[in-house]
């Protein structure tokens, strides 16, 4: 009898959780807003330069994918899961009431902890290419710059933060939170660099960079905190359900 009641209350709790999630999704605005650098914003010379920066990172990531998927049994499904998560997370416009604007988290900090920064660049590149081609989200001429900001900067800063904090012997919760937070902020800091470099003209680069960065703050400050919480929640789940995945995935760093 007691077991039956427990099962019933668990079912009610699950239904409440599903209802709350559905409510959240319904309340989200229906119109899609792109948050990457749009098509045509960067001059051709800068577009080519950012492609040249991005391509070696993508090549390294692809080589790593081949090597690690031969060595590890569950690696391909893990990369598939993380890739789908990065694609969905980076398309998801989240309204920020404090700023009255929308922006998206990136998911690259979490991805870097799970599959390493090299492979995160690969999954971010695939996600950004699909978004640029079919979702009017970013652009093909700005793809290189978007890969460098979301893939390279987001992944390496997030992974670096996690690795350093764990090496210092601090709790994993702090490491995961800061990895999510800093990967988000690093992405938008890098976007500010690529915009300021291309658009400062005769003015000062640092002045333009500061102006763009400050303009991002009201939206990205709370969103970075949200991404940190998201990262902690996801890692908590993996640690409780399959901790060996963390040890295997990031080569022991996680």
């Amino acid at each position, binding site marked *: 009898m007691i077991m039956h009641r427990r099962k019933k209350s668990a079912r009610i709790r699950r239904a409440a959780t599903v209802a709350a999630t559905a409510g959240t999704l319904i309340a989200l605005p229906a119109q*899609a807003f792109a948050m990457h650098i749009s098509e045509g914003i*960067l001059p051709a010379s800068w577009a080519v330069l950012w492609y040249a920066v991005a391509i070696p990172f993508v090549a390294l990531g692809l080589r790593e994918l081949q090597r690690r998927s031969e060595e590890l049994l569950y690696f391909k499904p893990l990369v598939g899961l993380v890739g789908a998560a990065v694609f969905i997370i980076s398309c998801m416009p989240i309204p920020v009431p404090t700023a009255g604007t929308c922006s998206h988290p990136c998911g690259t900090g979490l991805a870097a902890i799970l599959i390493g920064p090299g492979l995160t660049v690969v999954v971010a590149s695939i996600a950004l290419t699909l978004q640029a081609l079919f979702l009017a989200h970013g652009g093909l001429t700005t793809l290189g710059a978007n890969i460098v900001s979301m893939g390279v900067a987001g992944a390496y800063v997030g992974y670096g933060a996690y690795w350093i904090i764990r090496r210092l012997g601090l709790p994993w919760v702090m490491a995961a939170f800061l990895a999510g937070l800093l990967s988000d902020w690093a992405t938008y800091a890098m976007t500010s660099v690529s915009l300021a470099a291309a658009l400062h003209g005769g003015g000062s680069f640092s002045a333009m960079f500061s102006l763009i960065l400050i303009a991002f703050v009201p939206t990205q400050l709370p969103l970075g905190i949200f991404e940190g919480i998201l990262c902690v929640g996801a890692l908590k789940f993996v640690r409780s359900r*399959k901790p060996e995945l963390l040890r295997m995935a990031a080569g022991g760093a996680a």
Partner: protein
Amino acid sequence: MKKAALLLIFAGLFLSAPACPLGRAASWSGVDETVIEKFAEKAGRTAREPFINTDQGDLLLFVFLLAGMVGGFIGGYNFRVLFPPKRRTGEEKHV
């Protein structure tokens, strides 16, 4: 219970967002419009239409829905491979 409370807080935040005073003043546009395109226009660069322009009427909604479905399927399939559902002890006894 904690999880449900947390989800309700987030749902409340999103539901109340369009009603807040800032929300009325703002159009909930993305930071591409409010930051990136604003600075680009000042520097004399304007955003161009995408090469495959799906931003026409409800087409973009359809493409987003399709992308969500495909992404959700791939994510869900791999999730099940990595985290198979736990078998209940009662079921195991019957088998």
